[in-house]
């Protein structure tokens, strides 16, 4: 093959990839922004949950036992439940989280959040889980999960096609020309955020798909296990389970004592600690009831829970979870790398930063698309402008609105969490209408930054005014940064928004330098995107 021919070939490949990157990137970009933003915020879901429950400021040691909570949860279920689940308070979740799984598999899990000291049910809130659910299924159940998966696949395609069209990955790492014309500056920003975060973006998109692989790609399960998912999970996870006997019993062993036994067994291994995670009772009240005690080990990525199973009636030790099979260990590693429940605050900050970098990459890409077409005029400009304002401005402002709603809706209002959701939706709709109506004004970005700035800068004040008196300063004095940390982080984001709203950088076109032919050609491909 001659070199001219190979040039033609690579050039046509690049152009094909440029088309794929442009349109395959544009189409899912607003959806991707929602998923990436939701996921980034969800890194601090438990801290936000605490922020959204001012009754817990400050929080003390729990006075409730597992036996008390277990008895209480069983009383809440109208019919004997399939299983009850309990999570004792820990450092990040300083409250009891407990609920029951109804006998009918189609009915949802019913959960309660209990004050660790009084055992009272805390006022309902969407809590930090809100962003997590938005992230993984957009509140769309199974359908939403598939939509998110499709967006994730688009993200992978956009990343790979982006790499192919982008020859000078290393050099562009150090290239940012904010003073250049709009399109090139945005292209640099898009490249910078895309390239710096590239390993993370690839990993997070891939592992996100991997989590629900059995839904998205059932072929392996069908061929290997004739579709019997329970058989497979039993085989790979090495868990214990047994059928209900349908014979009632009033006697129940003390779960608190069983936990002590489980801790003794874990401690014998000497690593990973003895912190408990979820504790469940399957078929409570039945003669065949089983208590499963799970370990919560943050010291490693794979969350092997080393479940200890006991007979709920006699307290006899039944089974110790076998180690995962190698394949399942790989799967668990991938899913847990995505979920970032290992490690501590540094991991969460890192994921937040990289996730927001992904958001910035999406925004940068949208701006490149716009700037290129704004110069020449073309199809879809108004639509893209409107969507940018409505989604990229709308979601963060609506999220702030949710935090305001959380603190301003009185604690005793019925269906309080619903009212929070209405607040979120109403704010988002208002922003979206504004963005659509003023899409061609050229002012939407700045206006929305101003709104976000005011709300974000006001959040610490809201916390002080609506929280328990003195709670914030007491938390800081204790060195407990969960709640003040959120106030501060949102305040800092508000400062950034204020700068963008009122003192934006004015782009002054730099004099065009003489450029070689080679560079000229490269820009034709990349800027053609």
């Amino acid at each position, binding site marked *: 093959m001659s070199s001219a021919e190979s040039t033609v070939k690579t050039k046509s490949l690049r152009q094909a990839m440029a*088309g794929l990157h442009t349109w395959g990137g544009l189409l899912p970009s607003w959806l991707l922004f929602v998923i990436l933003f939701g996921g980034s915020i969800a890194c601090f879901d438990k801290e936000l949950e605490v922020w959204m429950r001012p009754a817990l400021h400050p929080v003390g040691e729990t006075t409730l036992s597992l036996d008390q909570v277990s008895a209480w949860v069983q009383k809440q279920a109208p019919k004997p439940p399939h299983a009850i689940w309990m999570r004792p308070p820990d450092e990040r979740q300083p409250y009891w989280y407990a609920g029951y799984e109804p006998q009918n598999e189609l009915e949802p899990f019913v959960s309660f959040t209990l004050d660790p000291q009084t055992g009272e049910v805390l006022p309902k809130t969407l809590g930090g889980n809100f962003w997590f659910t938005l992230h993984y299924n957009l509140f769309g159940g199974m359908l939403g999960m598939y939509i998110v998966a499709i967006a994730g696949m688009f993200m992978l395609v956009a990343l790979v096609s982006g790499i192919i069209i982008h020859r000078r990955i290393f050099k562009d790492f150090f290239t940012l020309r904010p003073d250049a014309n709009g399109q090139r500056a945005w292209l640099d920003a898009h490249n910078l955020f895309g390239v710096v975060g590239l390993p993370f973006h690839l990993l997070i998109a891939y592992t996100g798909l991997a989590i629900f692989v059995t839904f998205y790609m059932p*072929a392996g399960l069908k061929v290997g296990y004739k579709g019997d998912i329970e058989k497979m999970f039993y085989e790979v996870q090495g868990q214990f389970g047994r059928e209900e006997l349908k014979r009632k019993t009033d006697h129940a062993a003390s779960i608190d004592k069983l936990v002590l036994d489980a801790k003794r067994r874990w401690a014998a291994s000497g690593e990973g600690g003895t912190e408990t995670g979820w504790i469940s009772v399957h078929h409570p009240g039945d003669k065949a009831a089983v208590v499963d005690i799970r370990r919560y080990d943050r010291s490693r990525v794979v969350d092997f829970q080393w479940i200890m199973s006991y007979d709920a009636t006699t307290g006899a030790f039944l089974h110790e979870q076998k180690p995962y*099979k190698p394949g399942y260990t790989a799967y668990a590693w991938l899913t847990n790398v995505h979920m970032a429940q290992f490690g501590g605050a540094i991991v969460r900050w890192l994921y937040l930063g990289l996730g927001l970098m992904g958001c910035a990459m999406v925004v940068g890409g949208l701006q490149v698309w716009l700037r290129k077409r704004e110069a020449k005029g073309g199809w879809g400009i108004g639509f893209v402008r409107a969507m940018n304002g409505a989604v990229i401005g709308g979601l963060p402002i609506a999220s702030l609105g949710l935090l305001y709603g959380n603190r301003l809706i009185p604690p005793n209002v019925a269906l309080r969490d619903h009212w929070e959701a209405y607040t979120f939706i109403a704010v988002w709709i208002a922003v979206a209408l504004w963005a659509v109506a003023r899409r061609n004004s050229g002012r939407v970005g700045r206006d929305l930054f101003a709104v976000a700035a005011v709300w974000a800068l006001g959040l610490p004040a809201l916390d002080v005014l609506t929280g328990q008196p003195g709670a914030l300063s007491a938390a800081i004095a204790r060195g407990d940064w969960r709640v003040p940390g959120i106030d501060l982080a949102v305040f800092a984001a508000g400062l950034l928004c204020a700068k963008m709203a009122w003192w934006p950088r004015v782009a002054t076109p730099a004099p065009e330098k003489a450029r070689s032919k080679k560079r000229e050609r490269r820009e034709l491909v990349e800027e053609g995107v």
Partner: protein
Amino acid sequence: MSNAISTKTGAKAWSSSPGLATASRIVAAIFAGYGLAYASTMFLTVYLPLVRSDRVVFASLASFIVYLAAIVYTFAARSASRAWLVLVGLSVVLAVAALVAGDFGARR
């Protein structure tokens, strides 16, 4: 060379031809690409030299990469019909190979 000419027209077809060829590629990427990912998962679930549960996990985890590669290939291929041919052809071969093993009762 005729080859060079055909790649040139291929490149041109992308930028200037009506949407039909592009639409064909999009459909091929989404559906035939998923078909190939599905068939490759079946194949690897049967033939990977591992125990059953590991075969299922690794075959399934690889499926997203196969899908991704199939999508990128579909847009890089010289023509839409060629992309269809390769994706469907490979899928059939892999799926048949997987089903044949099942027919013999092997690796169940």
